[in-house]
């Protein structure tokens, strides 16, 4: 009798929940670019995940639809702005990005392998670091703020020309120690709430945490246009928000800790398609 009541109550409650688990849906952008939103987990996370999944699968029907067509994706306006920037000379050398790299579409294949070890610099670099290196050392221009508007727009342009290509971040060789550092951070329980990335995004993806439907916290879709703040959001801004939500002292965008974390989190999505700029809530 008691059990029965419990079961009935559970049914009642669960029907008020929006969803459980990822949806069964396919993402094709502009009717032409097929996006891999779920695939077998890469070897280095196969001990904890069978499949890796894009955050797109955890969003509602309308949010998902916005990403299927560039006219409906508010993030694409910023891509257009960056395209203009790409072709505009800046700095003491009087050069634009296009002067060295050609058309922005020539950069297809760059986003999927970043963060990436840079031989000359002897460090792992994010796309943002590389963009600022070009600005400072090739253009003689001011560095952009790590998560500022110009920068996040430019990373959206660089992501957009690689959409559909598989994320393929190298984690061995000289990148390995940074990757290990990122992995440590991923499993560290921070803040007064003592929560790690893994607590929410590995152990509980598919579950609701209050009003939020937890995804795997993948970054293949970055930068993301969020309906919540109606702008593009950089990877490190998201990391900062998630760490803050554990009631912790966060790391700064562009800090060595977040660079390492990005390398690690990015590599957990190896095999998923580049999807940015994506749409999330």
């Amino acid at each position, binding site marked *: 009798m008691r059990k029965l009541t*419990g079961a009935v109550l559970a049914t009642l409650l669960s029907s008020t929940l929006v969803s459980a688990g990822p949806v069964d849906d396919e993402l094709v952008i502009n009717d032409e670019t097929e996006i891999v939103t779920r695939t077998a987990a890469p070897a280095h996370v196969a001990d904890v995940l069978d499949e890796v999944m894009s955050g797109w699968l955890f969003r509602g029907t309308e949010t998902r639809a916005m990403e299927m067509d560039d006219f409906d994706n508010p993030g694409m306006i910023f891509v257009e702005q960056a395209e203009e920037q790409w072709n505009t000379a800046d700095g003491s050398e009087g050069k634009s990005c296009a002067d060295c790299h050609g058309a922005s579409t020539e950069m297809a294949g760059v986003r999927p392998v970043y963060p990436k070890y840079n031989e000359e610099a002897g460090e792992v670099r994010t796309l943002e670091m590389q963009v600022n290196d070009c600005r400072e050392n090739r253009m003689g221009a001011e560095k952009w703020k790590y998560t500022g508007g110009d920068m996040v727009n430019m990373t959206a342009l660089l992501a957009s020309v690689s959409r559909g290509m598989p994320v393929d971040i190298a984690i061995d060789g000289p990148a390995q120690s940074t990757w290990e550092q990122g992995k440590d951070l991923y499993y560290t329980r921070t803040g007064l709430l003592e929560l790690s990335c893994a*607590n929410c995004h590995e152990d509980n993806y598919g579950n609701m945490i209050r009003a939020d439907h937890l995804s795997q916290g993948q970054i293949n879709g970055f930068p993301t246009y969020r309906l919540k703040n109606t702008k593009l959001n950089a990877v490190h801004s998201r990391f900062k928000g998630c760490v803050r939500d554990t009631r912790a002292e966060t790391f700064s965008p562009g800090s060595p800790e977040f660079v390492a974390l990005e390398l690690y989190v990015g590599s957990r999505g190896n095999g998923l398609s580049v999807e940015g700029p994506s749409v999330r809530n």
Partner: protein
Amino acid sequence: MRTFGIAAVVTGLAAFSAQAETIAPTAVGYSDGAVEQSLTGASGDAARGREIVGDKGTGNCVACHQVTDLADVPWHGEIGPMLDGTGARWSEAELRGIVSNAKMMFEGTMMPSFYKTEGFIRPGDGYTGKAPEGEIEPILSAQQIEDVVAYLVTLKE
């Protein structure tokens, strides 16, 4: 005269226990994850506890738990077990232990420790993302813990 003396002592004691007997987060005694003694020396207020469990700014327990009795509060999470019937499954002392520091009862659990001030990695100042300025306060006060425990005890089915 003698009787008067004893009465005075008793009154004195009662006043003492109401104020000074609050057990500090660092002094809570756990046995098998349970805490026998009230953290305030008195029992809590179940109605206030109900509010704390549902309130985003304090306990926010529904972030992770579903509670049928709190159906008026929107959005219950699915991380931990449903709290319906928890007052029948656990004694008051066990519930006090779970809410104060669930890691004493469930090793490695994701549930935060609500009455703890030490041993954190990169503790922050609330949700500001900054380091705390003064001493770290527990997430819930001794009184709030007792209120929550008083409420959980009522969840018999």
